[in-house]
């Protein structure tokens, strides 16, 4: 038996297998098992208020979700939030990367400062922005009043038209630095001669950006878009801390719906099914971005 294994897999493969076994084992327990178990849950009608009856219902949970208007509301809120967050994060990251890729006095310090929001824990970031937006002692009110843009204090997060954008703003604040850092690294790898050649060929600043920087940035942009989409579409912390889905249903996103369904209504079956839909959507979107940007490298 061992001899046959030896023949089939060489010595190197076997030592490699032995060395990665602990990691694989841990992953099986903490990742594969929950994933499979939650799928099993999503096929059953499990409600914690009647824990003993958990009949198998097949795809019924999924069908029920798609007929639920709360689900479609959450999809539209999530879409708006994700598109705004990803687009703003990416555009800002490109601009910041362009700025920090230049050499100027203070550039190193600025690069270091840039990473502070990224290093801030998500919950701290949420609390910080909640305070900034606070209707009675918030910084935003104080600032806007001082420069004369508003006449009296406002309850920013209480405005349903603004809530989602204000949360997106807090998310961008935290997520942009890492994206910018990734793009800076990609930019540093662009050979200087390319810019020199483009200058001699007659390209102005904008044309150099379009014809030299942007094509070289594509792998970095792809990474940023995929990563930011994955983060934003599943984002939960800020919604929990800042608005809990409100005011009304203004920030009622998919992750919030899943939380409510699972841990407030205790309907684990549909909650798990929703999680699976969200996971699939994330996967498909990432795949589309990779296909779209990846094939043209």
């Amino acid at each position, binding site marked *: 038996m061992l001899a046959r294994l030896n023949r089939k897999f060489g010595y190197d493969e076997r030592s490699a297998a032995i060395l990665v076994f602990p990691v694989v084992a841990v992953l099986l327990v903490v990742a594969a098992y929950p994933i499979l178990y939650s799928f099993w849950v999503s096929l059953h009608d499990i409600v914690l208020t009647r824990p003993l009856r958990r009949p198998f219902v097949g795809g019924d949970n999924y069908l029920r979700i798609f007929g639920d208007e709360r689900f479609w509301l959450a999809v539209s809120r999530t879409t708006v939030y994700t598109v705004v967050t990803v687009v703003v994060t990416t555009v800002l990251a490109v601009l910041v990367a362009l700025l920090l890729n230049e050499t100027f006095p203070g550039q190193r310090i600025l690069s270091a400062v840039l990473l502070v929001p990224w290093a801030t824990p998500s919950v701290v970031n949420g609390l910080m922005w909640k305070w900034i937006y606070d209707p009675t002692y918030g910084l935003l009110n104080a600032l806007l009043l001082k420069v004369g843009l508003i006449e009296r204090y406002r309850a920013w997060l209480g405005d349903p038209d603004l809530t989602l954008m204000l949360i997106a703003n807090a998310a961008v604040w935290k997520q942009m630095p890492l994206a910018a850092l990734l793009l800076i690294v990609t930019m540093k790898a662009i*050979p200087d001669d390319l810019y*020199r*050649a483009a*200058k*001699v*060929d007659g390209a102005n600043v904008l044309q150099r950006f379009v*014809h030299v920087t942007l094509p*070289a940035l594509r792998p970095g942009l792809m990474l940023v878009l995929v990563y930011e989409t994955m983060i934003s579409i599943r984002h939960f912390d800020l919604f929990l801390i800042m608005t809990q889905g409100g005011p009304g249903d203004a920030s009622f996103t998919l992750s919030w719906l899943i939380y409510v369904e699972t841990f407030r209504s205790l309907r684990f079956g549909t909650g798990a099914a929703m999680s699976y839909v969200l996971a699939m959507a994330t996967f498909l979107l990432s795949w589309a971005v990779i296909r779209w940007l990846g094939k*043209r490298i």
Partner: protein
Amino acid sequence: MAAITCEKLTKRYGSVTAVDRLDLAIGHGEFMVLLGPSGCGKTTTLNMIAGLEEITDGTLRFDATDVTWQPPHKREVAMVFQSYALYPNKTVRENIAFPLQLRRTPRAEVERAVADVSEQLEIAHLLDRHPSQLSGGQRQRVALGRAIVRKPSVFLMDEPLSNLDAALRLSMRSLIKHLHQRLQATFVYVTHDQAEAMTLADRIAVMRGGLIQQLDTPDGIYSRPANTFVASFLGSPPINLVEGEIAADGRFARGALRLDLPPGAVAPGRAVTLGLRPEDVAAPAPGLASLEARVTLVSPLGSETLLEVVAPGDVALTLRVPKEWRVRHGDSMTFGIDPARLHLFDRQTEARL
């Protein structure tokens, strides 16, 4: 066509002076080579001519126009880089067409120009490939194509052949020479390879430490080097330099070594460095100075033979002799040297005497 005039051209990076008050006049349609070791300021000079590097001090003129402060695209120069610097996401066709597109050239005209250039450079079959699918030699041809397509009056080349292997370098060298003859444009060509400089140049500017050491035709540089640096930078194998002085009888002396010099060349007693090119030896004959030496190494090259010899005074020399000479290791032999072909330099200033 354009003549390029550099007057006291200077480039400083903080406390480093990369190019120091450089005066250089390059004629219409001339092939000028900037030659020198790494770090001597060749690239910096070229970049200043291109407008890629701000000029710290001095004046740069194209014909009568002062272009010191003009941006690169206004100068109508084309540049070829050692790294090729092709746009990796563009095809060969798009790379060559790019400078024309930036100038809003009509489409039909662009197509015609690209076809024409790719024909000349024999890259027509590569037009739809990307740079990553080309060999080094093909890439440099594309880079040349991108340079010549808009018919500039000045071509700037920064070590364009340094990344190519030896055989390819030879064929590209002649391609560039043909291009120069056909285009009748002004070429400024940077290299650290003396053979490249000798074969391509109308005139060579030999540089060291941001200064021009000598500006002359290849023949002038080779046969009348202005100082020991220029003398030893050109020629392969390099020139033999022997330190010594002028004896009372007017001959060169170093220990037991005595060599006849042209009469009255230098006053006796002066400390000098003698230069002898390896090929400047012949069989002993009347009218030639004679040099006794013992052969320590024989290296046949096929077309000729390299000898390492030790002359009196323990002076080691490298000599190049016809392959017909039957020389063996350990032989003692006499060589004839034409005094007029010897080079004398001041030992202190290193300048030619």
